[in-house]
């Protein structure tokens, strides 16, 4: 028996296969590295967007600290409830009218009988005169943003603008972003606070404020971010 294997020319094909494999590995490494670098740029934009939104939360909390009574009133007006009514006198949520007394007169609701049907202290789907109920709340939220706001011809809060940043800050940054901004996305009225121990309604509204921010880096990467914060708004 004669076993003959012709191995002439085998080395070069083997090397070519090996070189191709190396090429695939190289491509994989390059792709991976590029992806890693891109994710670093993205996480920088994400970090800046996070702290832009946090600046927005600070701004909102500052305004609420100064004007909590005005916000409480605006919340009640948006819900069709009388902010002057002392809700701490309500002992039966199913019959709040029982809290009307000579020293705590009504009305509880800011609409006429039969116009809407309240459910406990709330009026689901309350809206009146083409959305007139939200004008106080919308005005309150409208200047909680980083851009200038114009009220009756007066421009306010241009000092907070981040597009662009003030020169003294921008000049200190090696790679300043093109623009950053924040604003209130929504303010959801969650509930009227009820003290659990005593079952007493407080003159405190619980709201969830949602601040959204957006950042565009110098490389054109854009990142949006959102922060939610729940707050108690006291009238007293």
């Amino acid at each position, binding site marked *: *028996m*004669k*076993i*003959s*294997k*012709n*191995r*002439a*020319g085998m*080395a*070069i094909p083997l*090397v070519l296969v*090996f*070189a191709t494999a*190396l*090429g695939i*590995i*190289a491509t994989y*490494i*390059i792709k991976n*590295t590029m992806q890693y*670098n891109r994710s*670093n740029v993205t996480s920088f934009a994400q970090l*800046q967007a996070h*702290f*832009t939104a946090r600046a927005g939360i*600070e*701004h909102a909390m*500052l305004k609420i600290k*100064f004007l909590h009574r*005005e916000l409480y009133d*605006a919340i009640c007006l948006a819900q069709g409830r009388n902010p002057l009514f002392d809700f701490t006198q309500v002992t039966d949520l199913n019959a*709040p009218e029982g809290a*009307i*007394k000579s020293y705590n007169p*009504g*009305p509880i609701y*800011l*609409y*006429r009988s039969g*116009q809407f049907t309240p459910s406990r202290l709330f009026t689901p789907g309350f809206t009146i*005169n083409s959305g007139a109920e939200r*004008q*106080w709340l919308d*005005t*309150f939220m409208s200047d909680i943003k980083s851009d200038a706001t114009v*009220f*009756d011809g*007066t*421009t*306010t809060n*241009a*000092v*907070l603008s981040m597009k662009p*940043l003030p020169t003294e*800050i921008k000049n*200190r940054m*090696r*790679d*300043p972003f093109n623009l950053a901004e924040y604003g209130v996305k929504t303010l959801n009225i969650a509930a009227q606070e009820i003290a659990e121990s005593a079952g007493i309604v407080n003159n405190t509204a619980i709201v969830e404020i949602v601040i959204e921010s957006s950042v565009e880096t110098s490389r054109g990467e854009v990142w949006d971010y959102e922060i939610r914060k729940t707050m108690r708004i006291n009238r007293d």
Partner: protein
Amino acid sequence: MRLDKNGVTLLEIISALLILAFAFIPLIGVIGTSSSDSDVANSVVFAQTAVRNILDTLLDDVPFYAIKPAAGQVADVDGNNAEDNVAEIVDLASPVFDRKTFLTLLGNDASADSFARGQIIDERGLVYKTKLYVFPIPVSNTVDTDSEIAFTHLPRPIYENQVDANGQNIWYTYDNAFVAGTALSPYDTPDGSKLVQPPLKTLGAVELGAPAGPDGNSHCVMKKILLRVSWQNRSGHDRSIDIFTMKANLQ
């Protein structure tokens, strides 16, 4: 039995080795670049984590009055790059605040000074310089809307003083949860007597009762904050991350 072993020649082996050598040249470059990029990425991750820790702590735990611009220029720890508006962190009695913990985050052990800059070192021994800048937003007795922060709101309508022809109040009810038939609701058109809608109010911090505050805070209620973390890669390239935010006086 005879095996034919004439297939691999010296020429073939040399050619194969040459091809293999050429194939390895770019691969070595790629591996080198990848290793260097990975080094950069690790530094970026470390710096970003430091930035997040420092700024979150600053916003959550450092009292507003504990951070102020240092008087004059402050240099880096190595004595270079003296700049204005570098923050100084001060101890406070009320609320009680000890600056050391925060300064340690910045890489300043607070043994020498209270300036918000320092050096932190990662597990590879790479040194990162930190520097915190603060820019207080000015406040006047009467708000200057061009350069100061202002707070605008639409006051609630004054509806509770509605009276009839006899001067009797028609707003308040003692047996009805709803607005009385003859009274105007706050959503009706203001008429100047029964229902008054006050105009928009734009007020500044002083007008809203912001206290003067210690150390020349001058009623300031908002400070702009910039944090820079910079370092030099092993390859000698300078890199930095600069993040901007704002801190309000919520005390």
